[in-house]
Structures are given as C-alpha cells and as structure tokens.
C-alpha cells in the first residue's frame, strides 16, 4: 500500500500547468469559465481539443498505439487536476470516451483507420443517437427502424436527447432491425458518416436553462450505408453494453467537483453572511462544505482505486456506482454554489453566458454560472441511464452476490 509522491511527478505537474497556462486562446479560457454543463461550449471546446491533440494529450486514456499517453494513475490524476484548476473546457465525451474506445475494441481495421484519427485530432464530433421519445430509461424498447436495402439501410423514426447533434458531423446510433424476438434482440449499432443525409433532420431543443444543448433527430426514409454497422446485425445491444465497459475504471470526474467546491469557497470568501462576517467563515457553511468535500474525496479515492486496477472496478455494478455517485455529487455541488449566489443567481443571462458576447454579467462571473449549472445538472440523474435504472442494476449485483 502506498501513494507515490516523487519529484518526477512534480515535474510532470509543472509541465502540464505550464502548457495550460500558455496554450489555450482567450476564447477557450472564456468557454472554460462559462461551462455550465458536462458539455462545454462547442466551438471553443473543439478548438481546444485540436490544440491538445497537437500536443498528444487529447486522449490520455486511449491505448498508446492509438494515440494515448501511457501515463500512470498519478499522472492521469495530475493532468485532470491541473486541467480543472485552469478552468478549461472539458473535451466532449461522445467521440473520445464512447465511440472511439468502442472502435478500438471491436471496430474493423477499416473503421479504425477511418474514424479514430479525426476523433483524436478533434476534427470529428460524433452525436449519440440512443433515446427515443417513447424509449428513455427503457432503452431496449427503441423503435427507430432500419430496413436493409441492397448495401444500405433505410431508416425511419426519430431520436431524442441527442446532445449537440446540431454541431455534429457524424453520429452513432441504435436502430431496430428486427421486431420478432425479445426487445433487446433485433437492435443494430450503426455509424453514420454524415448527419446531412437526405431524409435526416436535426432540431435543437431549448433546455430549462435556456440553452439548445439537446436535439431531436428525425429520419424519413433516410438511406445510409450498411458498412457503418458495428458488430453483427441484431447484435447492437451487446455492442452498446460493451461500450459501458469504458465507463469502468476510466473516469476522473472528481477534479471537476473539487473545482466546483473551490469556486464555491472563493465566492463565499467575498460574500457576506446574513449572520455577519463572510460566508466562508460561517460555521454552517463550513459544515455543509466539509460534508460535501469529504464525499467528493470518497469519489476521488474510488476513482484512483479503479484506475489503479483495484478489484472494486471489476464489480459488475461499478459503472452504475460511479455514475450514481458522481451525478448526485454534481447536483449537490451545484446546489451549494447557487446557495452562495443567492439572489445573485436569479437573473436569466443567456447573452452574458455566450462566449464572445462581451456582455458584462449582472453580479459576478460566479453568479453568472451557478443557476445555469444547477438547472443543467438536474439532468445528470436522468441521462445516461437514469439513477433509478442504475440503482436497479446495483441492487441486482447484490442479489447476484457481488
């Protein structure tokens, strides 16, 4: 049992910090500060992705042969910590964290050669077409149909909660290719080269925070090549489940949470408490802050154990545990932050939030982001398998004796 603290690691930290201090453009920095979602402002996010890619740091968790960095657990955490300290926009997870690793594992050589380099480089952005209006938590009930026709599939139906589809140039999706068996059967996993196929239409949905982050995607006799299939026809459910594996032992979400807490504390240090003095010195604030900080520490410990290969990561329920804990901590952190803002968080300021708008916020930059972050983070317990579904899975692992 040990945790390493070597001079080499400190040198690595300095190198990372130096790069983060110098490489991002002002717009990228602004986008980082104005990130109020797990999905950062798109344009600056991709610009930053490209800069990181040139440095070789866009996909630390990928195998080295595909462009990963081969860092130790300590290095990965140092990178994530410095990243958040610098308030930089997080890279989007759909390409780098989902379809990329999936292709590395089970894509054809052709698919890998074609799709991985532009993902790594930040030239492609893939949308994820899973949910449908009638199929949310019950994903396997999806009905968007693909019928084989020559070398193509003809798709009819729609997808919803397709994050940033209006910014995407490619899309991976689940379609129904067979209705005869159990609902998990008859699903196929497809890669779409483009999102502007004839018959394909993308409509953004305005969220409760006023942002068009999610989309609806409609398919009306939309013809796409069968070559985009991953795995066998009707075997898409197991492909989708395989993808889940990549949430296992890979995430380093706690540095983001730590950063939220730092911001809350910094803001509290200059916010008067209604009971006198500054909020940061108020025992009740300290008490709530400490409780949350300790819970974030537990997640951080769990992530470090998992990345280092500890057996907790082999528990079949680990992705569900990880998702549930992280999502609920994000929500709690956003509540704490918006408490600090108080009435300062009540102004709806979409223009000031837009990167490059040069609109001065009402109140502080902290107040600008707390309410959108709070509102947006209500989704963390809904998307990517609602926390109800995750808890079902966790309890099943107990029934199975894990």
């Amino acid at each position, binding site marked *: 049992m040990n945790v390493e603290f070597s001079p080499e690691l400190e040198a690595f930290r300095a190198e990372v910090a130096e790069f983060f201090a110098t490489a991002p453009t002002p717009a990228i920095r602004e986008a980082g500060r104005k990130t109020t979602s797990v999905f950062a402002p798109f344009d600056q996010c991709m610009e930053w992705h490209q800069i990181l890619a040139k440095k070789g740091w866009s996909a630390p968790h990928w195998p080295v042969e595909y462009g990963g960095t081969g860092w130790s657990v300590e290095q990965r955490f140092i990178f994530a910590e410095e990243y958040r300290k610098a308030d930089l926009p997080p890279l989007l997870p759909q390409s780098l964290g989902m379809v990329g690793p999936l292709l590395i594992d089970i894509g054809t050589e052709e698919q890998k050669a074609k799709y991985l380099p532009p993902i790594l480089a930040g030239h492609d952005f893939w949308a994820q077409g899973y*949910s449908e209006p*009638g*199929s*949310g*938590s*019950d994903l396997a*009930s999806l009905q968007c149909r693909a019928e084989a026709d020559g070398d193509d599939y003809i798709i009819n139906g729609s997808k*919803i*909660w397709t994050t940033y589809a209006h910014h995407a140039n490619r899309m991976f999706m689940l379609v129904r290719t067979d209705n005869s068996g159990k609902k998990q059967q008859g699903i196929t996993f497809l890669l779409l080269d483009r999102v502007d196929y004839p018959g394909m239409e993308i409509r953004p*949905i*305005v*969220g*409760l925070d*006023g942002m068009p982050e*999610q989309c609806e995607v409609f398919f009306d006799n939309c013809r796409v090549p069968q070559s985009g299939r991953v795995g066998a026809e009707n075997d898409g459910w197991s492909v989708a489940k395989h993808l889940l594996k990549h949430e296992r032992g890979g995430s380093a979400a706690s540095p983001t949470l730590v950063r939220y807490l730092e911001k809350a504390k910094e803001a509290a240090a200059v*916010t*008067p*408490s*209604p*009971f006198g003095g500054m*909020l940061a010195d108020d025992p*009740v604030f300290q008490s709530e802050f400490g409780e949350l900080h300790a819970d974030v520490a537990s997640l951080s410990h769990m992530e470090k154990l998992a990345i280092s290969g500890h057996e907790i990561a082999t528990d079949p329920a680990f992705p569900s545990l990880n998702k549930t804990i992280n999502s609920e901590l994000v929500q709690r952190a956003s509540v704490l932050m918006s*408490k*600090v*803002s*108080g*009435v*300062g*968080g*009540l*102004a*709806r*300021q979409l223009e000031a939030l837009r990167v490059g708008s040069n609109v001065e916020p*009402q*109140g502080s930059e902290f107040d600008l982001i707390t*309410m959108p972050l709070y*509102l947006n983070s*209500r*989704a963390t*317990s*809904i*998307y990517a398998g*609602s926390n*109800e579904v995750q*808890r079902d899975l966790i309890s099943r692992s107990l029934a199975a004796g894990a």
Partner: protein
Amino acid sequence: MDFSFSQEQDMLRDSVAKLLERGYDFDTRQALVASDAPWSADVWAQFAELGLTMLPFSEEQGGLGGSVADCVAFAGVFGEHLVVEPYVTSTLLAGGALAASGTPLALEWIEKLASGEATLAFAYEEGNGTATPEQIAMTATPAGDGVNLTGEKRLVIAGDAADGMVVVARSSDTGKLGFYLVQAGADGLTTRPYKTIDGRASATVVFDNVAAFVLLEDAGEALDAILAKAIIVASAECLGAMKALLRLTSEYAMTRKQFGQPIGMFQVVAHRLADMKIAYTKALSTLTYTTALANSGAATPRDIATLKGQMGKLGREIGEAAIQTHGGVGMTDELSVSHFHKRILAFDASLGAHAFHLRKVGQMA
C-alpha cells in the same frame, strides 16, 4: 380555530381563477415572458377591476381593508398560472410602505396603486448577505426636505418598468432603516434590467446620490410587518406552484409508460410522488395555520421564519422531484414543469433563503 376561507374569499379566488384560465394559459404566459413587455398591462388592469390592487389598503386610505387571508385566498392561483405581474412587490411591499408612511405623498401614490394606474418597485435586497434587514447598507443622507440615496440594490422586481420605487435605506444620521420614494428616471439612477429565471421583469439598480422623498424615517417595525405579510402571500403563490407540480407529475406518472407500465407503478417513482404529497401537505398546513395566526394578529417572527423556511425547502423538494420524475421532458423549456420549479427557486432565494430562515428559527426556538 378556524382554518376555512370565507364565502367572499372563495368567490374572489374563483374570479381570479376564471380570469387567468381565460387569458393566462401557459403558452400565452410564455409569449408574454419572451416579449419586451415587463408584464401584461391588460391583465394588470383586470386585477385592478377585480379590486385586487385596492384590496389590502385600509378603508381610511382608500382601500378595501382586505386581510392577509384575503390575499392568500387568491394568490395560490397566481402561482398555478406563473403570474409575472408584480402584485407582491408593488401592491404589498411598496404599497405597504406607503400605507405605513401615510404622508400626503404616500396617500397620493396609494391612490395610483389602488386604482391600478401606477406600479412601484420595492428596492430592498442587496445580495445574498442581506436576507436580514440588519445587513442593509444603502445609505440615505439628509438633503433638504428629502435624502440622497447611494448604494446598489439587486433583484428589484419591476425596477425598470415601474413608475418609481420605494427604497429601503439606512440613514447616515441615525443608522435607522427608512422608506424613501424615488421617481422613475431620477438623476443618478442606473438601472440594468433583466428577466428573472421565473420570467419577472427585474433590475439591478445603482444609486449615486439620488434625490428621494422621505416616506418613513424609522421604518424598522413597519418593514418587519410588511415583509411578514409579503412572505405569507408569496408563500401562497409558491404553494400554487407546488400544487401544480404535484398534479402534473402524478398525471404524467400515470400516463408515461416505460418497461410496459406507467412509471408511477414503479415503487420508487410512487414513493417519490408520496414524498411530494407529504411535502405539499406540510406546506399547505403551515401556510394555512400561519395565515390564520396572522389574521388573529398573533404571528411571531418565528412563525414567519418557519413559514418562509418550510415553503422554500419543501418547494424545492417538490420541484426537483417533479423534474426527475418527468425525465428528459422535465428538462425542457417547452414544458411548464421546469418553470414552476424556477418560480419556486426564485421564491426561495428572495427575502432570505430557507436555510437562513430555518437557522433563525433555531436561534429563536
């Protein structure tokens, strides 16, 4: 103990409900919020016709002598319709300050408010630290017959749209809090308007030596009284939003199907609905009891803090549960669910958040 509304109160509520059902459906309301108008002048005129703007003023001051229970009777309907018109801030808070003042100038303004021809903002909050009046920093420096005001006010509802504002400021002479009247567009006034997350026209207002009329120089007690009344009526609005969310969410849970059955049949969803009803029942009970207490002149500061604290806390619980139960659609701007939650959030953050009031209860209990 009598916790029932009178026949007159029921009738007034029904009239307001009819008016809003006719002309304040959700789409109309959303269009209004998206427009440049701060609120609907038409709806405001109808409120005045029904006597709402006249109601709380005493008969001697030209009002109807309505009680806080009268206002509670119809304010729930405001919450159910997400009304953005500034009833609490203009009629109750600014109006209450005028009534406490009673100067000729105040009476003149009461007449304008009561008839519906004018509105006033109430410039009180200065930020998260000023949940308590003790932290008010805005200064009033004597100048001639009046004062000069300097400082900054946040969340001034109707601050840019009203015909003037009542400002709560601290006398540079006595250190006491007073009520001061400022005309719209006065020199030295900088107004940055915005819409709140729950669709109200609001503003940040900076005062740089703004000339103001004195309404009441020692307004400490009057302020507590009008805040108490405003909290009770705003709580009724909040309860209306909670009621709407409880109804919408149970309806949704009984119709939306996943895994072959209505999601309300899943025990975890069912229990979340039960928790919403528990929260709603607590909130309804506390609002009703506190209203009756206030009507009997017996509501203490602890009672008011209990009410504000409970409504904010329970309201947030209901709002968050409603969104979680609705899933993705609950996250959209299109559905009313998130708007009811934002109304509750705004209620909670205004006039002291629940944590502030509940801690006050702990100090006083």
